[in-house]
């Protein structure tokens, strides 16, 4: 079983890096990420079925362990690859003694196109409509905003951003 888990994890990582490098994009591509993970887990379960037959215990352990690895990796990917905090840490690494005035950090961030990139990604997903300098919320975006605000007040200390 563990050989199967390791092989699936390696295959997923290789495919993830290869696809992201072949078709670079700043969009989070969450659906593609989880479709890839789902495909790898399904392949692993199919391999186990072919090798050992319908052993429910093995399939359950395999699905559980691989799901755990995928969720853990998605947490790492989300945190390291897309977080504002990691961007700030990365910026400090380029400085001598890794220190910087907050004002300089802020000015650089405001000059970058990171905020606009968020708007662009949301426009691509249909949550906002961007026309020139104007940004408008779509119906789909409005639904997501209401859901986020509600669950933000229940499952966290409010949606602080």
């Amino acid at each position, binding site marked *: *079983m563990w050989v199967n888990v390791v092989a699936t994890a390696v295959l997923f990582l290789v495919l993830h890096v290869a696809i*992201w*490098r072949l078709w670079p994009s*700043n969009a989070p591509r969450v659906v593609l990420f989880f479709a890839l993970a789902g495909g790898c887990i399904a392949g692993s379960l199919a391999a186990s079925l072919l090798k050992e037959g319908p052993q*429910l*215990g*093995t399939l*359950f*352990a395999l*699905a*559980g*362990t691989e*799901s755990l690895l*995928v*969720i853990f990796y998605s*947490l790492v990917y*989300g945190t*390291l*690859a*897309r977080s*504002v*905090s*990691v961007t*700030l*840490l990365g910026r*400090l*690494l380029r400085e001598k003694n*890794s220190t*910087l*005035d*907050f004002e300089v*950090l*802020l000015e650089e961030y*405001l000059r970058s196109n*990171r*905020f606009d*990139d968020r*708007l662009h*990604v*949301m426009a691509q997903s249909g*949550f*906002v409509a961007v026309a020139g*300098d*104007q*940004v408008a*919320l779509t119906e789909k*975006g409005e639904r*997501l*905003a209401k859901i*986020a*605000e509600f*669950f*933000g007040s229940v*499952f*966290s*200390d*409010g*949606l*602080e*951003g």
Partner: protein
Amino acid sequence: MVWTRTTICQFCAQTRFVTPLNELLFKAIVDWVCVWLGVMVLDVAFLALVRAGKLSRNSLLATVALFFWIFVGLVILGPLLAPLADPRLKIGAVAFYLAACLLYMEARSILSRGYSLRILVDLDKLPGRRADRKTLKDNYGGMGVTGLLAKRVRTLADFRMLVFAEHRVGPLTWAGWCMGYAGLILRKSLCLHDVG
């Protein structure tokens, strides 16, 4: 939680819901789901206390509390799974439980610190649900992008990743250095530019 678990098992046995499944496998699933729900209830209650002002607002404290609830869940899950002879069922149940906890942690993080979600909520509150880019940047979360960055830097300081004092950010601690480099390497490997 034990009551919920017993009730679910009895209900499913009566309705013969478990017939097509291995009964032990079904019990393992019920066990991890019930413990996970218990962890969520504990965490939501903790956050309610924070909102009510009974506990201090601190990102590190909230994260440590969540890890503590997850650990408590594992301690409860152990004896529940003990009667299962098949170790594969125990491994599967614990793995699914931890996966669900991580998923909850991820959802909570997005709902608390979601950059894009906050922009959507801000737009939703503006008249006509539209604005120009500058207004959005200035009003981000009621604090503007300046507030967003200040908050992130303070959180990094709370997590002991850097020092933040008198408008001077840095130097990085060992943890901040590792996190920063790990992020840079991952972003470079995945060809992600100007994200975050």
